């Protein structure tokens, strides 16, 4: 008998899930900007994975120079023009998507893990643990994130993993504060009391009741923050602490092009546009996700 229940059940579950997804997607579509954001994010992610394979001048990505062609303005041959050593900027921008996007995402994933862990522990267990963890969080929060990241990155030495770690260590307090707040309101829910009344322990209550009910706002904040993390990665590259030239990274490219302005504007404008576009698209997508998860917050 249980077999019958199982088999009819999985179909019913699937159809219930599908209607939930359909409903969610409908709300997402309500705001055209969210859809634009999502499309650009998907394109950027594809670029991050495959950008170097579709670059028209892959040899430039390995540092090959072509001094004869330096500072060519945008043309059919070089869509975004060439830089001071004659490399194709279009190829560099495509390849730069990988480092910028993936490090931006990595920063937020690490920051979310640290922040959520600390915030959930503080909010759930309360009392002195909450006090200690939140004072520490506030302390980190009062330091300007970029300056803190610069100090950490300078201390650890320049490398991409160190830069990611440095930014994540500066970034987690926002997630900790938010997770704590969400836990405080979720743990007051009647269904948590019901689980306690049945004799449920802390592990069960945290994993079955609290965490599943706080993931939506965390995912929304993650997608909003990825854009800013990409900006921060570029900023560190720009001031020369994160990624080093000649690695193609948007911030580094912007930084190098400073001395080419204003005459050779294309060396700055295209990496700049790439940063702008990714920050904006992640924000639009985040807004759309918020509409899906929390329709009440819609303006």
């Amino acid at each position: 008998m249980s077999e019958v229940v199982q088999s009819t059940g999985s179909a019913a579950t699937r159809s219930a899930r599908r209607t939930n997804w359909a409903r969610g997607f409908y709300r997402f579509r309500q705001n055209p900007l969210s859809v634009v954001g999502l499309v650009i994010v998907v394109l950027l992610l594809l670029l991050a994975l495959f950008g170097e394979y579709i670059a028209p001048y892959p040899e430039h990505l390995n540092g090959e120079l072509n001094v004869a062609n330096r500072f060519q303005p945008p043309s059919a041959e070089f869509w975004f023009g060439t830089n001071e050593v004659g490399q194709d900027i279009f190829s560099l921008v495509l390849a730069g998507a990988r480092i910028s996007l993936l490090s931006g995402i990595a920063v937020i994933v690490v920051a979310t893990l640290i922040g959520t862990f600390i915030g959930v522990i503080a909010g759930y267990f309360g009392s002195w643990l909450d006090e200690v963890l939140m004072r520490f969080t506030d302390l980190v929060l009062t330091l300007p994130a970029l300056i803190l990241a610069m100090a950490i990155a300078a201390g650890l030495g320049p490398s991409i993993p160190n830069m990611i770690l440095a930014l994540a260590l500066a970034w987690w307090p926002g997630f900790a504060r938010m997770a704590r707040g969400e836990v405080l309101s979720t743990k007051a829910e009647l269904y948590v009391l019901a689980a306690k009344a049945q004799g449920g322990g802390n592990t069960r209550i945290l994993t079955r009741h609290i965490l599943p009910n706080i993931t939506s706002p965390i995912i929304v904040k993650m997608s909003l923050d990825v854009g800013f993390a990409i900006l921060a990665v570029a900023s560190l590259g720009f001031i020369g602490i994160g990624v080093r030239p000649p690695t193609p990274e948007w911030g580094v490219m912007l930084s190098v092009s400073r001395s080419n302005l204003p005459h050779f504007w294309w060396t700055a404008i295209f990496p700049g546009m790439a940063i702008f576009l990714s920050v904006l698209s992640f924000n639009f997508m985040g807004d759309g996700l918020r509409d899906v998860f929390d329709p009440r917050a819609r303006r």
Partner: protein
Amino acid sequence: MTILQVENLTKHYVTSGGYFDGRGETIVALDDVSFDVRRGESIGIVGESGSGKSTLSRIILGLERPDSGRIVFDGTDLSTLSKRELRAICARIQVVFQDPYASLNPRMSVRDLIAEPMEIHRDILGMSNAQITDRVAELLTLVRMEEDHMHRYPHEFSGGQRQRIGIARALACKPQLIVLDEPTSALDVSVQAQVLSLLIGLQDELNLTYLFISHDLAVVRYLCQSAILIRKGKLVENAPIESLFDAPESDYGRMLIGAMPDIDPDRSPFRLKSEA
């Protein structure tokens, strides 16, 4: 035979007070409350809002410790038990909350919701996942829902159906005592009557004891054999239901009964009682 003895229960809350004076106020939520509950009986606990009814239920459920006094369940004083033993008792005392919307985790399927107490007490019950699923199906039938409802989520159900899910969850571990904290006050009157008659049927079938918290005397009269009245944390009357309604001893009882709306017996959803 007595299943639950509540002896001299007292509970104070200290509010955190204002920002500037810092003086917390002390609220007496329960003041020296004692009563007994007989096995298989329904006892109503009636009082206005803030009188301490929910506090009493939380202490009986072991969610809070009293400041003084004790709870004796089936011969055991709960305050003497270790955490482990207290957890085991939890399986025998269950609760259905007033609000069927807030008391079910929206992210869990009906199967997982009803299975939860069985999973928590797996060490005592020793049930496999398949056995738990079978039992969930059985419980859904018991509360007059369909078996394949178990794969749906709470938001797909009406208030009355959700309350049945809550009742099925409370019944999962075959408890002896069920605390019903205003289980029907959030429902439409006609749905209320259905849930109440379900509760009465289950009580006969499973030999349950109900602790029925309400501020609706009409519902208590319909369901319970006796009732206690609580006012500002103090027990003011403890009487069999008939004598309470015929000749209330306390002023508070007279006031509450006087305030009851007259019910046209032919139109009342609770008329089942007179037929039975």
